[in-house]
Every structure is written in structure tokens, then in C-alpha cells.
């Protein structure tokens, strides 16, 4: 069964800095795959390479059976890939409903002419997008913000709106860039439920870049650990936790032995 996402030998340099060096990653269908690593490990860079925002200096990106050396960003949606951003990329001038409806933009075919005259196809597409967005709003209980412009909403609500926009198109592959950042405990649990529901109900494959160890360890099937742009570990939550290389990268203590004894509580789920 071909992996939904497979990165082979991805390297990326910004001038002198090697952001990513020869990174391989493969994510199977229906899998929740965590990507963790200390700050500046290259997690977001990897996500940006996957979504065509950065052009890798080497390596290929495979999505389903199509493979690219540079993924054209505008084709991402039609390939069934959706993502959220580290610092929320919503359309400030539009309402919550319109923002979420944009998640279905890649399916729209009606031309401007048809929209102005309100011809069949245009009206149907608009109605379908509105209904799907309304359903997603209900699912993420955003009803009371539905018609309010996004710019005035609190941070947590904006995060949910962006997730709703990514989910509304029922993507095959969902890339989440630190979705838990700045969220409260209860919000985090709610978000995890939504992610698990997406995987279980619609079989969405999920890649999760996240700092919150508890969350990542809790819901990921497999985890890849990056450090200074290099993949230092890849395996199940349990394997990764006990891998001395990972521990050293995280805690930076020279004697690996001493580290094994004093593992911080939250690292051990």
C-alpha cells in the first residue's frame, strides 16, 4: 500500500545554514504521524517543503502516487492536501463562514460570469460550500462566531476556524503546524478528539508538528524526531522515548546513563 506521503533525501539550505539535511519520511494511510524536535530543528521547514512553500535543494516529495522535486503550492488542494499555519493564516476581511467555505475553493469551477448571473453551477457550488462550512461550524461548535469577521475573534477560536477550513474539504492528508500552541488544557483535549475523529471517520492521514510531548506521544502512531535538520529517530511513541539519541538531543546531558535515570515525568506517558 503506497504511503500517502513519502519524502526522500530532502535537503534545504538558507545561504550558509543547512535547515534540512537528507531527511526521509514516509506516512502510511490513516496514520497519525508526529514530528518533534527542539526549536530550530527544521520541523516547520519540512512542513513548508511538503506544501511547496520552500523549494528543497535536493530530494523528492511523494504524495499518493505523484512525486515532485518541487510541489506546486497551488495544486496542493487538488491533491487532497490541507494544512494549518504556525501563526494562523486566516482571511481577516471575511467572516468565519466565508473563511471556512474557502476550504472547498479548489472544487469550484463556475466562472465569474456564471456567478454574476447566478446560473445553475455557480449557485449549486456556492450552496454546497455554505452547507459544508455550516456543518463544520456545528461540528467545531463555532456557531456563535459564524458571521463575525475573523480579525476580532480570540486566538483559540481562530485556531479552530483554521482547522475547520482545513477539514471542510475532507482532505486525504492533513498537515498541522503546532495546532496546540497557546491552547488551554480543555481546548487541547477537544482538538485531539477532532483530530482522532477526522482519522477514524474519514480516514484522514495526519502529520502533526507539535511541541506538546503529552499530546504527540498520546495520539501519534509513529513519530519522527528532527534535530538540526537531521532525522535522528523514527518509530512508535515507545521506541522514540527510550532512544538515547533522542533523549540526548532533547536534554543535552553528556552522560546518556545519567539521563536515563532522571527522565522528566511528562516525557513518560
Amino acid at each position, binding site marked *: 500500500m503506497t504511503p500517502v506521503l513519502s519524502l526522500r533525501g530532502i535537503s534545504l539550505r538558507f545561504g550558509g545554514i543547512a535547515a534540512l539535511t537528507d531527511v526521509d519520511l514516509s506516512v502510511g494511510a490513516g496514520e497519525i504521524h508526529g514530528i518533534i524536535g527542539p526549536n530550530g530543528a527544521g520541523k*516547520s521547514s519540512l512542513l*513548508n517543503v511538503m506544501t511547496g*512553500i520552500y523549494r528543497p535543494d535536493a530530494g523528492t516529495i511523494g504524495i499518493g502516487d505523484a512525486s515532485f522535486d518541487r510541489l506546486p503550492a497551488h495544486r496542493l488542494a487538488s491533491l487532497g492536501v490541507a494544512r494549518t*499555519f*504556525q*501563526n494562523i*493564516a486566516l482571511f481577516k476581511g471575511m467572516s468565519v463562514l466565508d473563511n471556512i467555505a474557502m476550504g472547498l475553493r479548489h472544487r469550484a469551477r463556475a466562472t465569474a460570469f456564471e456567478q454574476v448571473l447566478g446560473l445553475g453551477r455557480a449557485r449549486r457550488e456556492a450552496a454546497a460550500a455554505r452547507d459544508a462550512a455550516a456543518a463544520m461550524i456545528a461540528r467545531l461548535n463555532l456557531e456563535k462566531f459564524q458571521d463575525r469577521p475573523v480579525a476580532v475573534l480570540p486566538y483559540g477560536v481562530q485556531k479552530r476556524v483554521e482547522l475547520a477550513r482545513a477539514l471542510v474539504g475532507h482532505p486525504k492528508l492533513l498537515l498541522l503546524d503546532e495546532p496546540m500552541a497557546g491552547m488551554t488544557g480543555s481546548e487541547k483535549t477537544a482538538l485531539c478528539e477532532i483530530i482522532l475523529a477526522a482519522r477514524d471517520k474519514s480516514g484522514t492521514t495526519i502529520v502533526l508538528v507539535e511541541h506538546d510531548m503529552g499530546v504527540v506521544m498520546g495520539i501519534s502512531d509513529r513519530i519522527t524526531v528532527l534535530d538540526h535538520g537531521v532525522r535522528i529517530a523514527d518509530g512508535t511513541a515507545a521506541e522514540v522515548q527510550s532512544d538515547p539519541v533522542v533523549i540526548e538531543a532533547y536534554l543535552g546531558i553528556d552522560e546518556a546513563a545519567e539521563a536515563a535515570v532522571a527522565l522528566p515525568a511528562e516525557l513518560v506517558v
Partner: protein
Amino acid sequence: MDWGFFAGVAIAGLLTGVMYSLVAIGFVLIYKTSGVLNFAQGAMVLFAALTFVSLDEMGVPFWVSFAITLAGMVLLGILIEKLVLRPLVNQPPITLFMATLGLSYVIEGAAQLFWGTQVHELDLGIEDVPLPLNAILISQFDLFCAGVAGALVLALTLLFRYTRTGLAFRAAAEDQYAALNTGLKLPRIWATVWGVAGFVSLVAGLLWGARTGVQFSLSLVVLKSLPVLVLGGFDSILGAIVGGLIIGLTETLAEVYIGPMVGGGIDQWIAYVIALVFLLVRPTGLFGQRSVERV
């Protein structure tokens, strides 16, 4: 191809470019420190020149009228900053640009209200007759302008790069809130910036005014300096002078050599096309800071 003539045209073009840079520097100063494209720069140049020449005609000695005008411009700058720009500080750039357009109406109106609408001659006592070099046409006035422009650029670059006030300017430009947190008194910084811009407007006003006569159309010199800004980069003093030289050179050569074939009078729009060509290579000007988008 008459290379002597070509050299003459090229040098004339460079000297014209120097004049454009003088006005462009005023723009850069304000943009570099507050992100505002101050379209009232032309009106400030007019106001400064008109004030100076009116005082001069009243018999006030040269340097006294220069000092009074400079004081007036600094005061004007402070008023502009206080009444117009500070209340709009967190508005989008286009709103601030519009505010400076409204401001240019006010200043142009005030200039004509105080000093009348007549045309004045301005003689700085510097010969503007070609020096005895055969093909090349340079006058003492040209050399004086080039000298002044060079001095201004040097002084401002040094100010920005190596002095504490320069550092404060750059901090204010980078991030106003961060600058506030470090205890920088922003109002004082902006007042100084606008004061220096007032000085630059006065210098540009005098040098341009000596050439065109001090009259309402002096405020239109702005149109010639916009391509320079785009080419050099809005926030680079060096870009203002280099951009000016490039635009002046290519514009003059284009008018002399291509103009006659297409009906002439092309130097107005060719300057923008030249700037556009450079922009396609570097979308934020030759020396402009590249805007990095954090995703």
C-alpha cells in the same frame, strides 16, 4: 556616433539625476524611520523655497533667512508629526499615504496664503554657465549641487549607521513597540526625523528653485523623484543617490537618442519604465530591505 556628445549627454544626465536624488532623500528619511511615504514632500520643498525667497526679497540677509526658514521647517515637521501622523500611527500605509496627500493640500494652500501666488527669482550667487570645457557641459552650479548631494548622503549614512540617534531612528523604523519598550522617546525621535527632512526639503527647494524659479510648480519635482525611490529602494539613502544617477542617466540618454524616433517627450514615462525593469529583477529596489514573510 559622436562620443564627445554622448559623454556630454551622459554627464548631463548624471547631474540631472543628482537633482532628483536631493528630493528622493527627503522621502527616504521619512519612510526609513516611520514607514510613511510622505507625499507632502513636494509641498514642503515649495514651502521652504517660498519662505526663503520671500524673506530674502524683504532684505533679510542670506544666512539669517536660511536659519529662519530652517526653524520654520523644523517646526512644520514637528506639527505634522504631532497632528497628522501620530494619531494615525497604527493605520495601514495606504491611509498614511493619503493623509500626507491631504497634508500636501494644506501646505500648498498655506504657502500661497502666506507668500502669495507670484513667481520669484532665486539667485544663490553661483554661476550656472558652462565651464570652458568643450563638449562636456558642466557649470559651477552643477558641481555645487553634486557636492551638496554627496555631502548630504554621506552625512545621513554616517548618522544612521554610526551614531546613537541614527541607531534610535533605525530601531523606531524596525518596530515601534519594541523601540518604546527600550525607553526610546519616540515623539522626540520622529520630531528630529521630520526636522532633518525639513532641512533636506529646504536644500532641495533652494537648488531646484534656483533653476526653475520659485513658484507653485516647484512642488511637481516630486514626480521626477518617485522612480528614483522605486529603483533605489524606499528605505535606502544610498539607493536614493544611486537610483537618481541611474534614472537621470538613462532618462536623458533615452530622450536624446530614442526620443526623436517616437515623437519626443518620452523622458517623463521612460524613467518609470526603467525603474520597473529593475524592479522585476529586485522587487524591493536595488538597496531596499527585502520583506521576509514569516509563515
